[in-house]
C-alpha cells in the first residue's frame, strides 16, 4: 500500500472513530458540556473543575471547553455541543448580548443552557442564570476599603475589561459606597483589562503621575496582584490594595499583609449548583427555582483568609 493510501485509510478510520465516540456519548443523553472563559484565570478553571466533579458525581459525562472571551468561538462550541446532542450546557458566557442568539439556538435544538457567573441580556432563553451578586460583593469590598483608609485619602481604581458587564457592575458597586465619603478622592481610573502585566505597568505610570495615593481598588484579583507588584517595586508599603474574586494568590498576599481585602465569588459552589439544577431539570422538567438566582459574595480579609481555598470557604 502506498504511503498516501495508508494515510487516507488511517484518517478515514480516525474520522469514523470520532463520529462513533460522538454518537456513543450522545446516545445515552448523558453529556454535560461546560464552557467557560480561558482557564489561565484560576477563577474560571475552578468553575470548570467544580462543574465537572459534580457532573461525574451525578453520573454524567462532562466535556470542558473554553471560549477565551471570543463570542464567535463560543458560538462554534455551542454548535458542536448541539451536534453532540448534549443533555445540557453549563456556560460562563462571552458577552451579555453576543451570547443571546447562541443560547437561543441551543434551546431550539432542545439543549437547555445553565448560565453561571455572567448574565445575558434576555430572559426565558436560558433555564437558569446563576450569578454572583457582583454589586453586593463590590459594596462589601468598598466598605472595608473605605474603613481601612480612615474614610479619607486619594485612591486609584483599576477597572476590568470594559466590554465585560461585570467590570462595570463592580465599578458601580465600588463608587456607590466610596462616593458617599467626600474625603475619598479618586485621582486616576484606568482599565487594565483583567491583566496582571498590564496592571503592573499602568500602576507604575499612575504612581509617577500621582505619587500621593493611599489606596488602590481593583476590579479583580489578577490586577490587584499586578498593582501590588508595582507598589512593592516602588517601595510603597503604605498603599492599601483591594481586589475581587478571592483567588489563592490574593489569599496568600492578604495573609502576608500585602493586600487588604478581596470579595470572594463562590465560583466552585456556583458551578456545582448549576449542574445540580441541570440534573433536576433533566429528571423533573423544572428546576423549581426562578431563572435568575443571585449568590452573595463574601468579604475576605485577614480574619477569614486562611479558610479560603480554590474559591470556596471551608467551615
Amino acid at each position, binding site marked *: 500500500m502506498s504511503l498516501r493510501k495508508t494515510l487516507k485509510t488511517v484518517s478515514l478510520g480516525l474520522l469514523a472513530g470520532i463520529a462513533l465516540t460522538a454518537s456513543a456519548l450522545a446516545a445515552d443523553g448523558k453529556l454535560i458540556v461546560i464552557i467557560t472563559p480561558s482557564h489561565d484565570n484560576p477563577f474560571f478553571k475552578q468553575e470548570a473543575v467544580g462543574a465537572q466533579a459534580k457532573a461525574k458525581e451525578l453520573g454524567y459525562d462532562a466535556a470542558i471547553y473554553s471560549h477565551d472571551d471570543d463570542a464567535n468561538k463560543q458560538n462554534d462550541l455551542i454548535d458542536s455541543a448541539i451536534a453532540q446532542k448534549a443533555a445540557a450546557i453549563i456556560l460562563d458566557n462571552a458577552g451579555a448580548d453576543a451570547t443571546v442568539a447562541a443560547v437561543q439556538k441551543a434551546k431550539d435544538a432542545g439543549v437547555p443552557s445553565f448560565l453561571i457567573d455572567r448574565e445575558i441580556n434576555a430572559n426565558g432563553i436560558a433555564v437558569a442564570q446563576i450569578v454572583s451578586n457582583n454589586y453586593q460583593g463590590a459594596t462589601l469590598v468598598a466598605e472595608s476599603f473605605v474603613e481601612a483608609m480612615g474614610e479619607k485619602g486619594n485612591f486609584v481604581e483599576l477597572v476590568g475589561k470594559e466590554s465585560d458587564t461585570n467590570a462595570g457592575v463592580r465599578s458601580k458597586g465600588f463608587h456607590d459606597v466610596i462616593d458617599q465619603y467626600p474625603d475619598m478622592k479618586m485621582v486616576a481610573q484606568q482599565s487594565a483589562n483583567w491583566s496582571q502585566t498590564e496592571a503592573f505597568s499602568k500602576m507604575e505610570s499612575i504612581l*509617577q503621575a500621582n505619587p500621593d495615593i493611599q489606596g488602590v481598588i481593583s476590579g479583580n484579583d489578577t490586577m490587584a496582584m499586578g498593582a501590588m507588584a508595582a507598589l512593592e517595586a516602588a517601595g510603597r508599603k503604605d498603599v492599601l490594595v483591594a481586589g475581587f474574586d478571592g483567588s489563592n494568590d490574593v489569599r496568600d498576599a492578604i495573609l502576608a499583609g500585602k493586600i487588604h481585602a478581596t470579595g470572594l465569588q463562590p465560583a466552585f459552589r456556583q458551578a456545582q449548583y448549576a449542574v445540580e439544577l441541570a440534573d433536576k431539570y433533566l429528571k423533573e422538567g423544572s428546576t423549581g427555582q426562578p431563572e435568575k438566582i443571585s449568590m452573595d459574595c463574601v468579604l475576605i480579609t485577614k480574619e477569614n483568609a486562611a479558610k479560603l481555598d480554590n474559591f470556596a470557604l471551608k467551615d
Partner: protein
Amino acid sequence: MTNTVATPAAEAPKGQSTLLLLLLKLRTFIALIAVVVFFSLMAPNFVSVANAVIVSKHVAINAFLAIGMTFVILTGGIDLSVGAIVGLVGMVAGALVLYGIPLEMFGVVIYPNVWEVIGIALLVGTFVGLVNGLLITRMQVAPFIATLGMLYVARGTALLMSGGSTFPNLIGKPEFGNQGFPALGAGTILGIPLSIWLLLVVAGVAAYVATKTPFGRQIYAVGGNERAATLSGVSVDRVKLAVYMISGFCAAIAGLVVASQLVASHPASGETFEMNAIAAAVLGGTSLSGGRGTIGGTIVGAFVIGVLSDGLVMMGVSEFWQMVIKGVVIVGAVILDQMQRRIARNARLG
C-alpha cells in the same frame, strides 16, 4: 538661454525636497520629541528622572522583542511567535524556580541556581526560534504561517505547563540555593533598573552586528534581493536560521524580565506583544519587504510607542482612545515612510 532659466527653477524644488527628505528621515525622532513635549505639558509629573526610568523600563520589554523582530524583518520575514515565547519562557523559568528539574529515575530533584535558570530559559527561547527557522528554510513554510503556528504551539505549551494557572512567588528558597530571580526585574545599578542596562547592551551588540559585521551585511543582502545574495555566495538559509534564533533569544530576555518584575509567571503573559514589536520596527523605518531598517530606528520607534502609552495613562485617557491613537500613529508612520521613498526616488531621478 533656456538653460539659465531652467537651472534655478529646478534647484528650488530640489533644495526643498532635500530639507523635506531630511525631516522625513528623522520623522521617528521628531515624533518622539513631539510626544515627549506634548506629555510634558499635559501629564502631571511626566518630566522627572523617576518617570523617565519607569518609561524606559516599560519600553525595554517591547524593545527586546523589536530588536529581534528587526533582524527577522530585515531578511523579509516576520516572527509572530515572540509574544508566545515571552509567556513560555516565563513559565519555564517559573517552573524551574518553584519545582526544579525532577529526575524521576533517580528520585531526586535538581534545583538550578538563578544563572542556570536564566541560561535554560534563554536556550528554550532560542530553540523555539531554531524550530521557526528550520520550518522556514528546510520545510519552505512561509514565515507568517510558520511563526503563527509556533505562536499557538508555544502559548499552548505555556498553558499546559501549569494547567493555566500562575506560578506565584518566584523568590526561591535558601535551602535550594535558587534565590535571586526577582533581582532581574527589581535590581538596579547606579539607580537604573537592570532591564535598562540589559537593553543598552543588547541594542549595542545588535547595532554592531547589523552594521559592522559580514553577517549583518548578509542580513541586508538577503532581505534586499535574496536571489542576488544567493548568487554572490551568501548562505541564505543559514542567515535566516540565525535571525529567527536571535528573535527567539531576544523574546526570551523579555520573558525573563516580565516574569521577574511580577515575581510570578502567567501563561498568558506577552499576548499581542508581537504586534507592538512589529509596530516599533515599522515606526522606526524598517520596511516589511526587507532589506531596509536600523536597530537605532527600532529603538526610537519603541520609545514612541512606550511614551505614548505611558503618557496617555498618566493623563488619564481611556483605554479605548489609547488604542485608537496608537493605531493612527502606526499607520501615519507608514504613510510618511512611503512619502520619503517617493521623494527620495524623485530626487535621485531629478
